[in-house]
């Protein structure tokens, strides 16, 4: 076992050395350096496309997905090795994708064979970009109260309604969407999980500007949108199960956001901004804050590993993903408060090249959404109280 893993490590290392372009080993300069793929995606340079194609050909954009759909077919331990080796050379993520983080796992569990064959390979290759149509103006934390309606027209549905906070709806090719298929049923029981093309007539999007100055999400309107019945995932009116399963994957992913590779340790940045007094940072209170953060970041990284190991083995309730979401996002917010403290006035610049167009400040602002998107921190605590601690009335 251990030897096999070492042999695998050697192979991976060699392959990465040959195949990861040097440009893809540099830290991201800004959000535009991320590769999202999709029909309309403009690659920043040749290297970005090459890196995606090479990784996708090995199935390593989705290392643990089955080989039959184009995934890497790796074991969890092998996938860890791959991640570690990528981190070792500061390799960028070849592909960021809601298809990978959210829809894929749900399709693997609930999709029909045809759906898996049709939708998984283009996700793995970064050809189709997905967005998530869950939230509505009246249905945020209380997601199950959603009102977007799908009327049965025999072989298809006609969908009418409005979604909001749909991340990248204006850039996505397809949407996975929660719609009400049985208005008479109780709120959790009349919901279905459907897929459709964002180019279907009747779909419109309107971008919303965030406090970070960026506009990554939209209001999304559906006006008599035709959705084929073959694009129902899971059972009719049982979409809530699919939705929740997907959320567990989404939450684990959001929880991990503070652990992005290539971030320079705050202790090192602080050396140049606050200076040193002997062997310690001159600002001793800031040093304390950074040290405590480092303790918690390291511990949380291990918690992600342990929790996924335990869920895989059935030792933990999958609802433990709510812990990762809650803890990881609160930690990331704390981290970025410190990024701002450490950066001082330099971190306040909004437009200069020096500040990478205000990257610190914009990211700091963006992290505030981490504890809202994918279910707020309060909602995660509710879930833990109910599902894991079995507290009454929760």
């Amino acid at each position, binding site marked *: 076992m251990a030897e096999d893993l070492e042999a695998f490590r050697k192979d991976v290392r060699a392959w990465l050395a040959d195949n990861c372009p040097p440009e893809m080993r540099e830290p991201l300069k800004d959000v535009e350096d991320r590769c999202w793929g999709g029909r309309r995606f403009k690659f920043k340079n040749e290297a970005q496309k090459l890196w995606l194609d090479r990784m996708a050909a090995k199935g390593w954009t989705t290392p643990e997905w089955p080989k039959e759909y184009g995934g890497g077919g790796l074991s*969890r*331990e092998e996938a860890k090795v791959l991640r570690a080796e990528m981190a070792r050379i500061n390799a960028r993520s070849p592909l960021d994708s809601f298809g990978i983080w959210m829809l894929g796992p749900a399709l693997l569990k609930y999709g029909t064979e045809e759906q898996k064959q049709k939708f998984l390979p283009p996700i793995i290759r970064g050809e189709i970009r997905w967005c998530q149509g869950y939230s509505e103006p009246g249905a945020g934390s209380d997601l199950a109260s959603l009102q977007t309606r799908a009327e049965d027209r025999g072989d298809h549905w006609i969908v009418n309604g409005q979604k909001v906070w749909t991340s990248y709806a204006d850039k996505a090719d397809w949407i996975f969407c929660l719609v009400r298929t049985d208005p008479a049923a109780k709120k959790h029981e009349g919901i279905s999980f459907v897929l459709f093309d964002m180019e279907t007539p009747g779909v419109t999007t309107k971008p919303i500007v965030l406090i970070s100055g960026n506009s990554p999400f939209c209001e999304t309107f559906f006006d008599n949108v035709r959705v084929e019945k073959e694009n129902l995932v899971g059972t009719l009116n049982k979409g809530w199960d699919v939705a929740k399963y997907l959320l567990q994957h989404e939450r684990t992913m959001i929880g991990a956001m503070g652990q992005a590779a290539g971030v320079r*340790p705050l*202790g*090192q940045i*602080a*050396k140049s901004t606050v200076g*040193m007094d002997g*062997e*310690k*940072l001159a600002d001793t209170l800031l*040093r*304390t804050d*950074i*040290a*405590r953060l*480092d*303790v*918690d970041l*390291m*511990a*949380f990284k*291990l*918690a992600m*590993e*342990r*929790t996924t*190991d*335990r869920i895989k*083995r059935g*030792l933990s309730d999958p609802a*433990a993903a709510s*812990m990762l979401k*809650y*803890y990881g996002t609160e930690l990331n917010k704390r981290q970025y408060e410190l990024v701002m403290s450490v950066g001082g006035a330099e971190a306040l610049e909004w437009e200069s090249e020096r500040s990478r167009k205000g990257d610190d400040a914009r990211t700091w602002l963006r992290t505030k959404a981490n504890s809202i998107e994918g279910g707020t921190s*309060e909602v*995660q*605590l*509710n879930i*833990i*109280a109910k599902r*894991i*601690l*079995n*507290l*009454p*009335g*929760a």
Partner: protein
Amino acid sequence: MPLVLTEEQTMLQESAAGFLAESGVKELRRVRDERDPDGFSRDLWKAFAEMGFTGILAPEAFGGLGLGHVEAGVVMEEIGRNLTPSPFLSTAVIGVSALKHASEDRKADLLPRIVAGDLVTALAVDEGAKHNPARTAMSATRSGNGFRLDGKKSFVVDGHVADLMIVAARTAGSTGEQDGLTLFVVDPKTRGVSIERTVMVDAHNAARIDFDGVEVDADAVLGEVDGGWKLLEGVLNAGRAALASEMVGVGDEAFTRTVDYLKQRQQFGRLIGEFQALQHRSAHLWSDLEVTKAAVLKALQMLDEAPDAAAPYVSVAKARAGRTCTLAVQEAVQMFGGIGMTDEVDIGLFMKRGRVGQELFGDDNFHADRIARMASY
């Protein structure tokens, strides 16, 4: 290495849990209320030996089980849940970790007696109110064919019942330096040693020990003269990680009892566990405990697999355990309300043990500082 216990480790956990729950928290009450002169039950310690626990870390050649720190941590966690007073930490973890570095003769003499439950050891490092081994001032000066020890030690766990002490003293350098420390194996009955038992807030054992011109032979030295730091750190790290595991047990048990209470106690015509304010604090605490459990298991695994790289993991584990256990016991007393303040209910005992565990071998500030030092900022 996945961050879960193996099948064998899980079996050990079950047997330790069953065994220690038998004496349970009432054993600590007995020791405290009877003012037990040893501060632990010799019979119970013999039973530890029969279970094999005393020999978890001892090599098989010396009668031990030849297992690792993860296994020792498994037993420590159950000790934490039951607040069991025993020399497991001082002897089976720290004593064995230190004496593994002794000469073959000495190992053959001492380790089987530890494994049999016949020999208790104590580590004498701290000298002041706060743990800081580099600040060791106690002196060891060459004298005859050996050394002469002068100085004072405090917070020596199981110091008054130890059959043998491992003492850190300075053979060179000055206070604050890591170089110049040497470890000695000292018989507490040697002339010039005086021991004061200092029962602690948690009714566990500790002692202050004076060394006044204590003469020891050259072969009392454990490891290298002047170069004891690395050995001492290794031994302390074993103790720190094991203690962190005990604190997970203390915190987790206090938490479990609290959540049970939230499901029983009624106010305003409702179970208090229905109040969202308490639900959220409980859910936060559960999350904190989960994160800490991961850090502690990793530290234990690192001590077994890559001890030279274990130090940062150990500090993360001990720092996290200190904070999390502290929060758990505080929340426990608060959520029990008035009854949580009474001696009759066990919750206060967990708070007391948590406080001692936080101080022993470096509190969370000490270990966060160590993380900063290791990253040189």
